[in-house]
């Protein structure tokens, strides 16, 4: 599969995301925020970082980048899109996912190896996991507190659209311990923790993150 990784001004984790894609056996296509061309990719990753310096709101300016028009149109047609950390923030700003992400409730940046439970293993990005599987991947964010109004939250829970939940500790005040969610179709996933940093034993908290990238193989199958 060809997997596009978008670089915005201020993106940090695009290279790690590219590496994760390669290790998972896919071809990487580097996509530039200022282009209007998805170059025929089969899936898109919006990586982490501090695009546009987090000015205005995290993800608020990137959401209007030229390539986002194409990403949004693709997502609405079923193109798999994974937003990690700042990418998750861009997806909620683009209204591809509901709710919002606020500063952590304790107001400190957090960086730790975090246990997650995969709550929905039927999305384009989580089919390599078992339902209920617990994994450990790095978490690093300042604005990772997931919030949504009560109706939205009830709908997400009722429709099984919580993809991953924090286990043992809620690191940022997210409602219902939510670490990641998906859209109705299951092709768009937003995740606050960083699976792309856990794909090699040498450098990661392990290799638990790889499943997000190998899952894509099931999309075309």
């Amino acid at each position, binding site marked *: 599969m060809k997997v596009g990784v978008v670089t915005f001004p201020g993106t940090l984790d695009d290279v790690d995301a590219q590496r994760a894609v390669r290790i998972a056996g896919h071809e990487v296509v580097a996509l530039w925020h200022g282009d209007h061309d998805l170059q025929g990719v089969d899936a898109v990753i919006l990586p982490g970082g501090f695009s546009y310096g987090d000015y*205005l709101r995290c993800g608020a300016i990137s959401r209007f980048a030229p390539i986002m028009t194409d990403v949004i149109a693709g997502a609405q047609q079923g193109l798999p899109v994974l937003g990690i950390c700042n990418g998750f923030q861009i997806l*909620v700003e683009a209204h591809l996912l509901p709710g919002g992400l606020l500063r952590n409730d304790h*107001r400190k940046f957090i960086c730790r190896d975090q246990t997650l439970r995969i709550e929905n293993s039927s999305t384009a990005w989580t089919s390599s996991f078992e339902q209920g599987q617990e994994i450990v991947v790095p978490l690093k964010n300042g604005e990772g507190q997931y919030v949504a109004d009560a109706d939205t939250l009830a709908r997400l829970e009722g429709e099984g659209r919580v993809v991953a939940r924090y286990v043992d500790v809620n690191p940022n005040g997210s409602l219902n311990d939510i670490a990641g969610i998906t859209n109705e179709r299951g092709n768009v996933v937003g995740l606050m923790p960083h699976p792309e940093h856990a794909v090699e034993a040498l450098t990661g908290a392990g290799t638990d993150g790889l499943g997000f990238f190998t899952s894509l193989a099931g999309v075309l199958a």
Partner: protein
Amino acid sequence: MPRVVVDVMPKPEILDPQGKAVLGALPRLGFTGVSEVRQGKRFELEVPEVTDAVLADIEKLADTFLANTVIENYTVRVEQR
């Protein structure tokens, strides 16, 4: 040149960690009697003239870009100078 001001505030039901941090500092600075602080943003937009069309555009700008209405409220007003 006329100025249009857009004020953006976190919705009342949304926790405002920045406001909480400011509130927490007040006693240390000797200020007492403040029971809550909410922190928002103020945008000052200079426009050649204020017309209904200009205000409608700014309303749209505020609604789609300056504020995220999932978590924030906004107001648009013309500043008299």
